[in-house]
């Protein structure tokens, strides 16, 4: 095995946003069982250490590719395209206004303990996330428009945070 390969090559998958999730899962389980430290319990120290490094490497690669947002970020990284997530001024004003409205709606529903409303927001957002993923597939795999893809990735970073907040609010309502 070669430590310098990228995550896709590691699992013998084409470097694309559209991914065969079942194939990824299968290859991951196969590799994990091959490099698992338990199998090297009686091996020499060098081999044990190497198996631990490999197990860590395989896990990290799997987590990165499994999650659509981190997969998109990784593809941009492979294309040497900076997502620019540290640049706070990079977001368009209309998007931020929309995000503010979402957060206000979540805060209001949470304060009023409106579980039903939170569920509604959750489903609406899930639908939006799916649409953004479809959009990313076109931008990354078909058009190879990394500029636009980076913009969609930045938006998704806000949207995923929002989803966590909605889910937190639902848990708070149930308590």
């Amino acid at each position, binding site marked *: 095995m070669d430590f310098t390969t990228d995550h896709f090559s590691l699992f013998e998958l084409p470097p694309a946003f559209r991914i065969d999730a079942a194939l990824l899962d299968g290859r991951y389980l196969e590799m994990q069982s091959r490099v698992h430290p338990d199998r090297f319990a009686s091996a020499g120290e060098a081999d044990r250490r190497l198996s631990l490094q490999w197990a860590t490497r395989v896990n990290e690669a799997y987590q990165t590719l499994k999650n659509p947002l981190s997969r998109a970020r990784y593809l941009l990284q492979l294309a040497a395209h900076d997502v620019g997530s*540290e640049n706070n001024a990079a977001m368009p004003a209309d998007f931020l206004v929309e995000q*503010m409205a979402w957060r206000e709606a979540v805060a209001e529903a949470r304060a009023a303990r409106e579980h039903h409303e939170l569920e509604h927001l959750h489903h609406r957002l899930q639908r939006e996330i799916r649409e953004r993923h479809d959009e990313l597939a076109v931008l990354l795999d078909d058009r190879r428009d990394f500029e636009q893809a980076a913009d969609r990735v930045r938006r998704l970073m806000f949207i995923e945070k929002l989803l966590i907040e909605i889910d937190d609010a639902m848990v708070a309502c149930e308590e």
Partner: protein
Amino acid sequence: MAYSVKVLDHYENPRNVGSFGKEEEGVATGMVGAPACGDVMKLQIKVGRGGVIEDAKFKTYGCGSAIASSSLVTEWVKGKTVEQALDIKNTQIAEELALPPVKIHCSILAEDAIKAAVADYKKKHVDQAAG
């Protein structure tokens, strides 16, 4: 991670939370967001004669440090001219609130919010002067 006393104070008793009416005279808005943490911050300034900031309000959805940073800057910009407000640096905010290195980006967000609000004020001002 433990928050400093000053962060907790601003977090628990945030100053100047809210919004100005859209039609109020001299109101300018700065909207910023940090993709890295998903925080969203709105800072509004109410500018009077001579470009002096008379009042400021904020609304921030984010962590305690982001809320404290924006709360603090609403206090700091009051009484300053828009040009003086631009001199507020994130390092001053971080120092005042004793922010740990991982939370420095919250103070940068607050500085960016001031810049965005002042830019909005100048844009409206030029538009008015031209119109």
